[in-house]
């Protein structure tokens, strides 16, 4: 984004990313119940409403699902969703930077694409 990356992330985003990490490293498994907003509020020393916002972010992305009256649970494909999401956001940021720099240096799109293709090829060969 245009806002500086070094600026502090909102706490509810930090909480949702922390939960994502717990899911990625399988501390919390698929179909297991996640911490309630009150538990998270105590753990992070924040207002429960803020913690609730962190949980809702993950529910919006279908990483978590709600069981009525029981709380929030980890979706079966939570890990895939998180990995896909992180891949997308990371690549998008990098591509954005790259395109911006290219425009500033007056590199035309064909030239840029050729550069990417060449590099991609080279890395693949190195790894092969």
């Amino acid at each position, binding site marked *: 984004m*245009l*806002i*500086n990356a070094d*600026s*502090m992330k*909102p*706490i*509810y985003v930090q909480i949702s990313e922390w939960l994502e990490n717990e899911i990625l490293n399988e501390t919390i498994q698929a179909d297991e119940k996640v911490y309630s907003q*009150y538990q998270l*509020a*105590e753990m*992070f*020393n*924040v*207002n*429960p*409403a*803020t913690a609730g*916002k962190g949980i809702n972010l993950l529910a919006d992305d279908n990483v978590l699902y709600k069981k009525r009256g029981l709380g929030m649970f980890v979706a079966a494909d939570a890990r895939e969703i998180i990995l896909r999401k992180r891949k997308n956001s990371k690549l998008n940021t990098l591509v954005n930077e790259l395109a911006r720099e290219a425009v500033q240096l007056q590199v035309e799109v064909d030239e840029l694409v050729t550069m990417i293709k060449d590099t991609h090829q080279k890395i693949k060969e190195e790894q092969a």
Partner: protein
Amino acid sequence: MNVVVCNNLTKQYGRSKVIHSMSFQLAENKITGLIGRNGAGKTTLLKIIAGYLHHSSGDVQVFSENPFNNLKVSANTIFIDNEMSFSQGLTLKELLETAGSFYQNWDHDLALRLFDYFSLDPKQFHGNLSKGMQSTFNSIIGLAARCPLTIMDEPTSGMDSGTRKDFYRALLKEYIAHPRTIILSSHLLDEVEDLLEDVLLIKSGEKCLHLSIDSLRDYAIGVRGKTEKVQEWIDRIETIHLQDIGANLSYAVVKNDRSIKELEDARQLGLEITSVSAEDICSYLTSKTKGGIDHVFNRG
């Protein structure tokens, strides 16, 4: 349900208006931070809500009733500040026991545990305590009373930093275990912001902002760069704050509602865009001049 409702609330001391037609509602079981500079009217507003002071005009309702001289409001409200007067003849332990008899939900066990934790001496008298210890004692009463409306006016003044942190943690744990409506006034937003759900910012007796803490954190953005570039960019944009930060460098704060194009323009001008902390936003919004303290020294 709203616990506190104010409509055009006004308070005058003689001819000077301390609270100017303020209107807001505080919802049940939220923690709201009342933030403002010295003399903004925080304490007066809180005392009106607690029923200690008459208002001059407008309307104030607490638990749907006028709080002044009201038994229902008194029984369900506790007001903690550092001017609380207690009987001189009672020890701290006796004060705790007496306080307990006034409040229906009083948790005496909690009061004693906090009392121990903060190393208060049961045989001591309130008047002999240091300022920080008095604040600690008063806050224990505030927490243990478990009042549906708990008002704390600068509860941590005089406390050392470890005690402040402990107190805020205790407040959060109590709130989670026994939700209640809490109004917390402070001029140190940094210290309390994580605890809050909403912020009510007042300036010179008027409501300035009333929003969630998360919206407040997103409320503004800062732009930093060469003075002439900053000037060019903020032309026609209303600034919240503008400051010279050194040789030919400026820092401006504007509302966070610029279009993608405008942000792109800023980037093209070589300006750096930053987020602005909630504390800074409040201090800029309540500042007398847009240049802040630097303005005073700017005689040129």
